[in-house]
């Protein structure tokens, strides 16, 4: 009686597995092969030439520079918000938690439009900014603002549950031993939340480099000036320059791989850390 049921169980398993593999092939492996295939179609020379093009270089630099500013901003905000939520009791706490999640709920394009409405030429601060000759929209500051907004929840969201789970005993112990607030933050709280913090940074980094919608609205698509990597891919694609478009896309794809590997590694570290005590 046992054998048939196990046989059927295997059938179920095989079917499920087949469905999963099919989906992965269709939606993941296929496109990946396509990206790298298209990118390398004209040979390695053309592939690397795509990155030496001035517009491509500018896009790479812009993306790196944006990320380099966005991540520290997110770090400060994420740590501050998580510390407030996890270690203190205050009125309006649940409202703050919901607000942190807001960028997840809002479409990135809407987020970009919001910044145009505030900082754009006809926006609330538009004329004031123009008087002072500060350009926000269709310039680098706008890209940073939009990217920061979209990635805002990543670090805070990773840290909050982790810090809540850890409780306050260690912080209280440090305080009783004479540590100041900053000493507690840098010597106790952050080192203990290190893995969650790194995890948040990795996710934030991936999103910051890959963000399209919000940045697309505020950037203005000025070639060689305000095009980030994803925007550059779109521009090249629209110009029917497929091999260059896919070459740049492959760069972003590689970045996603690195993120994935880092994420997996951090999760393993976390699992070890949790098993040890």
């Amino acid at each position, binding site marked *: 009686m046992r054998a048939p049921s196990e046989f059927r169980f295997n059938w179920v398993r095989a079917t499920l597995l087949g469905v999963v593999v099919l989906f992965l092939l269709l939606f993941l492996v296929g496109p990946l092969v396509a990206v790298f295939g298209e990118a390398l179609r004209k040979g390695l020379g053309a592939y690397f030439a795509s990155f030496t093009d001035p517009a491509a270089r500018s896009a790479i630099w812009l993306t790196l520079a944006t990320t380099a500013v966005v991540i520290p901003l997110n770090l400060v905000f994420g740590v501050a918000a998580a510390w407030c939520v996890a270690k203190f009791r205050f009125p309006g706490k649940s409202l703050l938690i919901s607000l942190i999640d807001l960028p997840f709920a809002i479409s990135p394009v809407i987020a970009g439009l919001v910044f145009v409405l505030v900082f754009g030429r006809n926006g609330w601060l538009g004329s004031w900014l123009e008087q002072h000759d500060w350009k926000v929209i269709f310039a680098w500051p706008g890209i940073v603002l939009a990217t920061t907004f979209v990635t805002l929840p990543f670090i805070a969201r990773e840290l909050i549950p982790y810090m809540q789970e850890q409780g306050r005993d260690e912080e209280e112990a*440090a*305080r009783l031993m004479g*540590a100041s607030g900053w000493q507690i933050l840098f*010597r106790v709280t952050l080192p203990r939340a290190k893995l969650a913090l790194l995890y948040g940074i990795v996710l934030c980094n991936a999103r910051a480099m890959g963000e399209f919608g919000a940045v697309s609205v505020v950037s203005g698509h000025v070639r060689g000036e305000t095009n980030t990597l994803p925007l550059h891919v779109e521009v090249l694609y629209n110009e029917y320059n497929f091999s260059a478009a896919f070459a740049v896309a492959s760069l972003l794809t590689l970045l996603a791989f690195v993120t994935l590997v880092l994420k997996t590694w951090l999760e393993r570290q976390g699992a070890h850390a949790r098993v040890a005590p």
Partner: protein
Amino acid sequence: MSIHIEHISKRYGAFRALDDVSLQIPHGELTALLGPSGSGKTTLLRIIAGLEQPDPGNGLIRFQGQDIAGIPVSDRRVGFVFQHYALFPHLSVFENVAFGLRVKPRKQRPTPQVISDRVYALLELVQLASFADRYPAQLSGGQRQRVALARALAIEPEVLLLDEPFGALDAKVRLELRRWLRRLHDELHVTSVFVTHDQDEAMEVSDRVVIMNQGRIEQIGSPQEVYHRPASAFVMGFVGQVNVFRGGLPGPVQQGHGVHGDGFGAIYFVRPSDVDIRPLSGAEAAQALRVARIHAAGPLVRIELLGRDEQLVTAELTQERFRQLQLEPEQQVQVEFRTVHRFDS
């Protein structure tokens, strides 16, 4: 440093954690705060440390006569040991103990050599010098708590507070550690307060026991006092086992002993060790009890007796007395009482 606590209250919403508590803790003593969970003992300890604020009012806490209300937690020189150790998992044992010295302002901070010497002296004291390079995750519970104690002592505290320090340990380690804590206290004589819900622990370790119930202090006294002269029915029941008789005693009080307490009610409390068993004589057949169970394993023999009205009486006899009586299950006997307490309840 002596601790004076005057009229401290603390509410959490509608729950009264502390209700007008006043307490004097003399310099150099080891005091136990004993009570069931929810009795307010941990809240009181945390208020002394400054981790919780008492409700505003005329409450006052003084260290050596000085009001500490305005002194920040970090300047109180309080060593605190947590139930779950609260060691820093990312720091070695050495760095955990050194923490309080390293965070001092630059001018007061000892030199690395002084820090190292002091940390090793403390690790010697808790017998963990060879574990200096380990991390908390690599230690047993008992070892972790000893590191926590060394760490609390590193800042040379005026007051040492311990919150259920042995609560997370298994029974055997708990027994060892509490004796060790007592010896340590005899060496250092730091004014210490420790919270426990384990009456054996409080009785064995402390100079004085403060028994708390529902946010109030029921009694303060030496372990002998609270055991032999309990101030209330609650203390009697919480500190050691007790027989409770409503309406009257199922036997006579022995000559040379008497009924203590100022209660007017007819509720009597007798410890099992104050119950003696005698063979039944015909004249007292009305007060005959039946031997229901005999637990003879241990230094004392515990005997459960059942009266006519199914009233349970627990008696503890010495092995010698037990052999003398030759008790058997189902045998009919009578009881006599030595010290009896009577309380209003």
